[in-house]
C-alpha cells in the first residue's frame, strides 16, 4: 500500500516509507537489536512477547522506534528481569542490557547516531573481551587445558573440539563417573591422562583462545585511526566462527554481529562476514 503519485498529502504510514527507514543503517541497528531480544527472552519467557512486539514496532513503525525513551524503557525491562530472575541470566544478557542503553543514548542525537553507537559498541566489546581474557589468565586451570577438558566432560557440545584434540568421546564417558566420585568425596583425585598430541593441542587451543580474545579487546580499544582497528571485524568474526561452530549461543552471536556491524558502520563486506558467522551458529544449533 503506497501513496498515489497525485496525492497532495503523504499518508501517515506506508509500507514503502517504513521499509526505506528500516533499510538505513540506523533502522538495521534498531531492528536487529530488537530481534535479538526475542532470543534473549529465552532466559525469561515473559520478555518474549514484549520483545516480539518491540521488534515488530521497529519494522512497522520505524520512526516511533527512533524515540530514545522507548529504548530506555526496554533497558529498564531487562534490568527488572535480571533483578527478578538473576539465576536465569547469562553474561550476554548483561551486554545486551548495556547495548540497549547505548542505543538509547545514541538516539538522543539522531544526526550522529551511528558515530555514537559505534563508539559505544567499541568500548563495550573491548571491556567484555578484556574481562574474558583476565579470567582465563588468572583461573589457573585454563592454560593447562584442564578447564577445557572438564567442560567437554560435562558439556556434550564441546565434544567436537576435544575430538579434534585427539580425545575420544569414549574416554570422556569412561572418566565421567570417576570425576563425579572425586567431587563427591574427600581425598579422591583423578589424573587427566592425555597423549602428547592431545596435551599440546589442548594447551594450544587455550593459548590461542586467550590470544584471540586479548587481540579483540585491544583492537576495539584502539582508536579508529590505528592499524589494529582494521583487525576488529576479522578477529571478531574469527572468534564467532570457532566459538559458535562448537557452542552455538545464538543470542550472543546475533548481539556480537549487530555491535560489530555498527562499529564497522555497516560496511558491506563486514556485514556479509557477520551474517556468515551467525549462520554458522544457526547451522550448529540446528544440527546439535
Amino acid at each position: 500500500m503506497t501513496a498515489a503519485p497525485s496525492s497532495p498529502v503523504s499518508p501517515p504510514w506506508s509500507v514503502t516509507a517504513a521499509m526505506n527507514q528500516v533499510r538505513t543503517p540506523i533502522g538495521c541497528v534498531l531492528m536487529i537489536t530488537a530481534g535479538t531480544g526475542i532470543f534473549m527472552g529465552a532466559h525469561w519467557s515473559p520478555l518474549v512477547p514484549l520483545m516480539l512486539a518491540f521488534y515488530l514496532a521497529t519494522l512497522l513503525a520505524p520512526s516511533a522506534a527512533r524515540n530514545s525513551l522507548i529504548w530506555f524503557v526496554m533497558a529498564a525491562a531487562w534490568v527488572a528481569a535480571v533483578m527478578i530472575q538473576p539465576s536465569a541470566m547469562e553474561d550476554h544478557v548483561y551486554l545486551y542490557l548495556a547495548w540497549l542503553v547505548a542505543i538509547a543514548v545514541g538516539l538522543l542525537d539522531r544526526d550522529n547516531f551511528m558515530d555514537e553507537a559505534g563508539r559505544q559498541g567499541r568500548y563495550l566489546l573491548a571491556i567484555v573481551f578484556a574481562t574474558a581474557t583476565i579470567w582465563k589468565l588468572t583461573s589457573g586451570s585454563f592454560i593447562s587445558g584442564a578447564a577445557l577438558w572438564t567442560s567437554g566432560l560435562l558439556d556434550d557440545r564441546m565434544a567436537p573440539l576435544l575430538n579434534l584434540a585427539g580425545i575420544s568421546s569414549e574416554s570422556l564417558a569412561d572418566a565421567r563417573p570417576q570425576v563425579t566420585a572425586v567431587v563427591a568425596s574427600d581425598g579422591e583425585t583423578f589424573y587427566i591422562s592425555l597423549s602428547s598430541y592431545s596435551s599440546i593441542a589442548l594447551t594450544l587451543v587455550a593459548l590461542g583462545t586467550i590470544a584471540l580474545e586479548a587481540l579483540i579487546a585491544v583492537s576495539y580499544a584502539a582508536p579508529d585511526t590505528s592499524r589494529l582497528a582494521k583487525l576488529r571485524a576479522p578477529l571478531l568474526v574469527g572468534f564467532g566462527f570457532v566459538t559458535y561452530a562448537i557452542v552455538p549461543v545464538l543470542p550472543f552471536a546475533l548481539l556480537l554481529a549487530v555491535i560489530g556491524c555498527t562499529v564497522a558502520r555497516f560496511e558491506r563486506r563486514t556485514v556479509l562476514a557477520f551474517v556468515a558467522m551467525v549462520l554458522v551458529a544457526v547451522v550448529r544449533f540446528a544440527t546439535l
Partner: protein
Amino acid sequence: MSAEPAANSTADRAAAPRLRSHLALLRAVPILVLLVAIAAQATLMTTVNADRQAGSGFAMFSSVDFAGSRSVVVTATYNDDVVDVRLPISTTDQVDGLLRSPTEDSAAQLARDLGEFEWVEQDGRIRATADGTNIDGFSVTVRRLTADGHELGSEVLAHAVAP
C-alpha cells in the same frame, strides 16, 4: 543501504548543541552499566564462590570450577549408620541455588528443611516417603573441583549439619 530519510525538524536541530552537552555525561552510562555488572559478578565469584558461568562475569569455560562441576553431598544418621540421602524433587531449586552460590547459611537451611520429611531406607540410602520416620542430623556439603596441572581434586565450599 539507502540514504537516511527526512532530517530532524528545525526545532530539533536548534536543540542539538544543548543536547550534545548533556550527552557527554550520558555517554558514560552504558559502559558504567557493563562495568558495574562485571564488578558485581566478579565480587560474588571471589567472595561467595558464585558460579563463573552464570551472571555477568564473562568467565565461561575459564576454570574447572563451575556450577555443573560441583556437587552437593547429603548424608544422615539412620539406625546409627551414616547413610547417603536421595534428595526429594521438591528440593531441586534449593540444590541448584547451592551449586550456583554456596553459603553456610543456605547449606544449613537445606539441612533443616530435610528434617521436615519422613524417610525410609532403600538400597543403602534413604529416600523421602509419605509414611516413613522423621530423622535428624542431616549433613550438607557443597564441594568443587580443583586442578593442579592435570590432576583433579576437590575441596569443600560450604558445610552445615542440622542440629
